[in-house]
């Protein structure tokens, strides 16, 4: 009986994976080929050249956001928070603005997109990890405090950023704005290669910690009991989360609710505790949401409604649903 059940569960998981992968492929193909003038090769090539970078950016962002949210939720032991709620995006925009503010738009640190991305990543990695790690330690992982302080931090960094913008020269501000508000129709295509490399490096760096994450998700006491070097592991994981958020924000801009939706949906449909599987599921779901959403936005709404609107509306409703109906599961 128990073997039967285990087999059934395994079969079910395989089906879920299959459906997810097929949906991803379908939305990718649909996005690339819909209205693409297949009969006119020149035009098709041109359109492909426009859509491919966007597609790759969305895929990168989906993986980064999915991984970051899932890891973060398991670190703080709560499934209704996202790094975005705690202001990680605003720290990123703040740091990006600060770099421009200090070195100016004429500096290679800003002009070279790859270099600029690296500078952002390094500053973000150090500042945000320190801020949040200190926050966790100081509050004893009390989620209510973390939420509260996170919200305050979010507007704190937002205010500093807007003050810097106000005293900036208008031209500088103009140039800054194009990189600051990346969106789906204006992705930051220049950094694709380095973003992929970064994501891979983060992945390799985090693999040993991901195994520990399965245990860390059971709470601090249980993790320590099972021999996890808790503080050390949390710092590394947090560092990974922060970098993922930086990568996602740099490529497609802030998408606040996406992580929340995909992480929770992944938990709901994957029915497993293993974070490698959960992250994989969340990444696929993120791709479906972003690529599919972009297709709908382009071809049905003709760019009048951006994807982020769908994501925010859908995410808002889903968030309410989680708060109201999943109380038991979220304690």
């Amino acid at each position, binding site marked *: 009986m*128990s073997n039967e*059940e*285990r087999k059934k569960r395994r079969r079910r998981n395989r089906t879920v994976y299959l459906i997810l992968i097929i949906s991803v492929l379908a939305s990718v193909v649909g996005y690339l080929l819909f209205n693409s003038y297949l009969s006119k090769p020149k035009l098709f090539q041109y359109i492909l050249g426009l859509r491919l970078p966007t597609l790759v950016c969305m895929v990168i962002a989906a993986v980064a956001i999915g991984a970051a949210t899932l890891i973060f939720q398991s670190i703080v*032991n709560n*499934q209704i928070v996202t790094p975005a709620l705690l202001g990680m995006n605003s720290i990123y925009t703040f740091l990006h603005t600060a770099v421009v503010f200090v070195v100016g738009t004429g500096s290679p640190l800003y002009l070279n997109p790859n270099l600029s991305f690296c500078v952002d990543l390094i500053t973000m990695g150090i500042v945000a990890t320190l801020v949040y790690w200190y926050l966790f330690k100081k509050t004893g992982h009390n989620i209510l405090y973390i939420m509260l302080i996170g919200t305050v931090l979010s507007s704190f960094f937002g205010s500093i950023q807007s003050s810097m913008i106000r005293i900036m020269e208008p031209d500088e501000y103009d140039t800054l704005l194009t990189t600051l508000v990346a969106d789906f129709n204006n992705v930051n295509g220049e950094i694709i290669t380095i973003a992929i490399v970064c994501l891979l490096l983060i992945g390799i760096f985090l693999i040993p910690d991901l*195994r520990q994450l*399965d*245990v860390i*998700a*059971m*709470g*601090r*006491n*249980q993790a*320590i*009991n*099972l*021999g*996890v*070097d*808790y503080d050390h592991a949390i710092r590394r994981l947090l560092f990974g989360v922060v970098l993922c958020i930086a990568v996602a924000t740099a490529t497609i801009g802030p998408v606040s609710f996406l992580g929340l939706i995909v992480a929770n949906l992944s*938990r709901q449909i*994957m*029915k*497993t*505790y*293993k974070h490698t599987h959960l992250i994989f599921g969340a990444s696929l779901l993120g791709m479906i949401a972003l690529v599919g959403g972009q297709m709908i936005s382009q071809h049905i709404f003709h760019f009048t409604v951006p994807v982020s609107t769908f994501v925010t509306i859908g995410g808002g409703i889903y968030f309410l649903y989680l708060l109201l109906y999943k109380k038991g*599961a*979220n*304690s």
Partner: protein
Amino acid sequence: MNVQDLIKNYGSKTVVDEVSFQVPKGKVLSLIGPNGAGKSTVMGMISRLVARDAGIIHFEDKDLNKWKSKELAKKLAILTQHNNVQLKLTVRELVSFGRFPYSGSHLTKEDKEIVDKAIAYMELESIEDRFIDELSGGQRQRAYIAMVIAQDTDYILFDEPTNNLDIYHASNLMRMVRRLCDELGKTVILVLHEINYAAFYSDYVCAFADGKIAKFGTVEEVINKECLHDIYKVDFEIINVKGKPLSVYY
């Protein structure tokens, strides 16, 4: 395990004040005392969940802090309250986590046998594929104990294990603690609120009051009228039941 001059302050308040005692090996030791006496904090410190401000905890051949977390997890297990897991985790998967310090998440054949044994020992076979969040409190408690058994440590620490359990499950749990000690040769340390459970199921009792040890000794030495009155400031009647001191208070 040897504890010397343990101190813990919260702000300016000293909650544990120069506590020293020796844990008898292969026995059941209960820590009792009124609220705020420091027993749970002491438990936290000897299980490394709470950082200490001063003092030495000598475990086997070196101080607790000098142990690698992973190695210590093979020697010492702690089961705390508030195990609200939000993961989709089956009983078997939870028990398998007990092998995490040894093999990580890839279990060897030997690990699987140990997990099987732990599940059988706690009589969880019929529910081994159920998800933890679908179990009753008593079943969940048993699943966690099975995990600790699979962890196969010499020392097992329980922090107020009978809280939130009804009389049936609480007394079953205490009998299980006794079996862990008698059959498997574990050293068990418990924090308990119910004096009678401490009296009936442990070998030694350590009573705390105001952050200090009020009395450490065998059950008979600690569970008596004078001693309990000193610790709890309440009058007790002691009745002898099955050779054990049953305390009555009102």
